[in-house]
């Protein structure tokens, strides 16, 4: 990085990840090099002659008097071929390269560019000499993995007419296209992470992101370009749910941010994803994935940056016209990084020590989600799903509450459910999706005209069960009226068969919409038969213990399940039919 004149200063104070320099000519969010080892930092406050800097690496041993140099640049990421399959730290240093440069442990003072500048990529132009292009125009394609990624004119370009365009193998630094304005276009773009990339227009998200998770697709669906929060105490299933979404959701690109969480969880993604196949393309899931891993023991300032790095990469793929989904695990650790930095700055703390700008930062982040018309007039989307880790599992704390005000889906994890190994431990009574209305048309057309009705019916049964449970708590289940004993049984089936889904079962981990419909429909069939028989006077204990329905849970673990469901439906009809006959006599 080039150092501009009069932008050198010296360190005055070091206290953890926050240091103070004097004599530096700097602007907010400039990237600076701190100390003799030139550690990377970012300007976060200016006070008279003092510049306050957050440092992305460990500051032990750094002394007052060491130099600080301003690069005059903002914290930015490199965008171009080579992103897919990569794993980065919070400031886009490739972890694989860091292992080769400094071994198994992350030492400091080592820089590594986000993309390989040596690797050659086959650039295939899709425009020709004489064509005019504007900001965002796709000028070529690169077969990056099994995914064909696009090379675009920078969103900041003024556009022009192509005077030269190449075809063949190039590095990301080679000029592949020249405009009459003299602008030279390379395959790589550099974009400041704290600035959202521009779009033509935001559109209404009205297509669901199909996740293969029954409780989500079935009861609380999210739209492509939508936002969701998964709050829950430790061990309730935030990470497993996020990983299931990263694996099975029908996005074309996945950005997974491990923000202040465990090292082994990222390693697991790294080992598992290359082995798993995308149910749609049949290609390894890793090929559509970019990972950001700034674990809990890596520097907090880089943790703060990690969500911006991630969302900028997501926007870049969105601009190519892809549906991107981004998982951030956990946004609470991000908020805590803000709190830690803020308290070092001795800022006036807001609620529970979080900075007063917490709510603003959260909403700016989620605002970068959306279904958009790109600058190239295609449709693309970024869906953002953030885990929230409330202290003590108490949702009334500031991060959960501020997140709730912004996101449109709330998938509330419940320790009571996870403790009884009801997974995913998403509480069906507290959770909600505000996309139900906008998505119902899609379900009508693509799943079944019956689908929305089935969903409403299932929710009603579950609500009713919750009310009945209160009575049961007082008088026992035998005291309930016959009809309600059947409701209790149907609700149990909904919970145990439809809602419970084992993320670690090779078959059950993903459930197609068609299978979701078939299972739900079979439960409804049973309910109709059961109420019918009960009206004719068949005792509920007989109806709720019919053998035919015992096989239904097994359907979840079967790939070829269709015949079995048909058989069960039939057997239930026969068995209930016999009961009815017996009691009619």
């Amino acid at each position: 990085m080039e150092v501009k004149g009069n932008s050198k200063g010296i360190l005055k104070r070091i206290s953890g990840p926050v240091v103070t320099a004097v004599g530096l000519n700097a602007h907010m969010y400039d990237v600076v090099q701190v100390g003799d080892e030139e550690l990377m930092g970012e300007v976060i406050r200016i006070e008279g002659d003092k510049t306050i800097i957050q440092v992305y690496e460990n500051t032990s041993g750094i002394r007052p008097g060491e130099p600080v140099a301003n690069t005059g640049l903002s914290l930015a990421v490199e965008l171009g071929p080579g992103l897919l399959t990569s794993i980065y730290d919070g400031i886009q240093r490739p972890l694989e390269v860091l292992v080769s440069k400094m071994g198994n442990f992350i030492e400091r003072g080592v820089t590594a560019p986000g993309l390989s500048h040596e690797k050659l990529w086959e650039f295939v132009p899709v425009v020709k000499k004489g064509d005019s292009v504007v900001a965002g125009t796709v000028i070529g394609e690169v077969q990056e993995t099994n995914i064909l990624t696009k090379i675009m004119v920078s969103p900041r370009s003024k556009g022009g007419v192509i005077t030269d365009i190449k075809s063949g193998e190039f590095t990301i630094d080679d000029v592949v296209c020249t405009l009459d304005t003299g602008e030279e276009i390379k395959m790589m773009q550099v974009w400041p992470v704290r600035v959202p990339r521009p779009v033509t227009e935001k559109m209404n998200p009205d297509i669901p992101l199909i996740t293969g998770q029954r409780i989500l697709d079935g009861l609380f669906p999210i739209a492509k370009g939508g936002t969701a929060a998964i709050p829950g105490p430790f061990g309730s299933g935030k990470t497993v749910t996020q990983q299931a979404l990263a694996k099975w959701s029908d996005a074309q690109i996945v950005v997974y941010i491990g923000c202040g969480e465990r090292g082994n969880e990222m390693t697991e993604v790294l080992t598992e994803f290359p082995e798993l196949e995308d149910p749609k393309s049949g290609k390894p899931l890793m090929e559509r994935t970019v990972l950001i891993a700034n674990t809990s023991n890596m520097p907090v300032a880089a943790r703060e940056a990690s969500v911006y790095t991630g969302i900028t990469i997501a926007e870049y793929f969105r601009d190519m016209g892809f549906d991107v989904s981004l998982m951030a695990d956990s946004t609470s650790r991000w908020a805590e990084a803000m709190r830690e930095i803020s308290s070092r700055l001795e800022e006036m703390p807001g609620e529970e020590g979080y900075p007063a700008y917490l709510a603003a930062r959260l909403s700016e982040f989620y605002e970068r989600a959306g279904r958009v018309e790109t600058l190239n007039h295609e449709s693309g989307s970024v869906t953002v799903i953030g885990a929230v880790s409330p202290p003590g599992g108490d949702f009334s704390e500031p991060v959960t509450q501020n997140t709730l005000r912004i996101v449109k889906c709330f998938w509330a994890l419940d320790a009571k459910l996870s403790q009884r190994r009801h997974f995913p431990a998403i509480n069906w009574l507290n959770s909600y999706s505000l996309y139900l209305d906008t998505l119902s048309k899609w379900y009508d057309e693509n799943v079944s005209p019956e689908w929305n009705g089935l969903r409403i019916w299932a929710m009603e049964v579950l609500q009713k069960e919750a009310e009945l449970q209160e009575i049961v708590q007082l008088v026992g289940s035998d005291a309930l009226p016959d009809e309600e004993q059947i409701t209790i049984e149907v609700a149990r089936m909904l919970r145990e068969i439809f809602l419970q889904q084992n993320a670690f079962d090779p078959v059950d981990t993903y459930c197609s919409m068609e299978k979701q419909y078939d299972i739900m429909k079979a439960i409804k069939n049973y309910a109709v038969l059961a109420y019918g028989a009960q009206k004719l006077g068949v005792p509920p204990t007989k109806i709720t213990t019919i053998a035919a329905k015992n096989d239904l849970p097994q359907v979840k673990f079967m790939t070829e399940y269709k015949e079995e469901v048909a058989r069960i439906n039939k057997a239930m009809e026969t068995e209930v039919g016999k009961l009815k006959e017996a009691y009619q006599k």
Partner: protein
Amino acid sequence: MKEYRTINKIAGPLVFVEKTEPVGYEELVNIVQSDGTVKRGQVLDTSDDFVVVQVFESTAGIGRDSGVRFTGETIKMPVSRDMLGRILSGAGKPKDGGPDIVPEKRLDIGGAAINPYARQSPADFIQTGISTIDATNTLVRGQKLPIFSGSGLPHNEIALQIARQARVPGSTEDFAVVFAAMGITKEEENQFMADFERTGALEHAVVFLNLADDPAVERIITPRLALTTAEYLAFELGYHVLVILTDMTNYCEALRQIGAAREEVPGRRGYPGYMYTDLASLYERAGLIKGLKGSVTQLSILTMPGDDITHPIPDLSGYITEGQIVVNRDLHRKGIYPPINVLPSLSRLMNNGIGEGKTREDHKKVTDQMYAGYAEGNDLRGLVAIVGKDALSERDQRLLEFADHFENRFVRQGHDENRTIEDSLDLAWELLATLPEELLVRIDRGLIQKYHPKYRKEA
């Protein structure tokens, strides 16, 4: 080395020094009292006006006449193979009358983060011989799995039983134990040491002892010394190391004390806002590294203040560790040992270490089914108290009995009873067989036909 006599303020464990030459952040500091005693500390804040030093021992005896020497380097730990069998103080000095450690290496105790790309996923099943761990909350090599307990509960016995019995079936590799005590009582120390001596474990162990009457702030470095030693043994010498840290609650209290002395804005219940990050810098020092032979497995013990799992110490720990084993007072009162409550317990790495070729193909599903049955049966106990057993359906009565069997036969075992995983799983099936078969919805038909005692007998 220059000695400054410019201390101008002492507050709790913190010493403020003025007019120094530039001093490095987190540098090691020696403070020389007028009687010649040398105390160690570390730089917490450094500027050209003043330097804040956190002293790791009592500040009693330090005054404005004390000398301050900045060593120019961060705290290093001398490590060597010969540490095995040694007992050291919480500050790493020999406590067993033996010679000083002759270092093969001097390592920074801060410990750099393992690059996630260099990690290897832990997947080797460790058999502890305890059913509620092996069958329902399986420990794997390289995992960090703490014991969440309460004061007066037998967490030490459980930790010792694990240390005695833990083995990876079929493996004969070198193992070592690193034991770090933070603020435990003399009595607890005796309990651990007697057991280590009785079983010969001491030979394979490095012991760090900071007792209740040792300086509280020393507890900040004790676990770091222990983990640095563990990493050395594991990643440089190839040992499989089991680290026992006890009691993490005392560690957190020391952290809170320093925060208060620095007049920081406190977080929840007075603990520092950075406690999550600080705890992560300890707990994350566990795992496996690709291409290296050894491993670091962490079994920390913490006592939950007021048995409250939502207290910041267990809460932040649970958010970092790979699960938790929860010791429960009600079970203890019922006379059940080990009083492990499986419901809030969890092993997050369990799925990697179990199943066909590792433990047994039915392991996962059997566990799920046991949890479901016990959770439901346990809930019904509350109901029975109100409506009486007769108001329960047949199904519910069976579940209620299942919960009792579960506690009395599956949870309960002897202090020296070392069950194999097959024993534990077979026992699980025996208990599940007391339930109507249609309740076993979590288990595939195939497995039921293979393992359910009813069909096994027929076969």
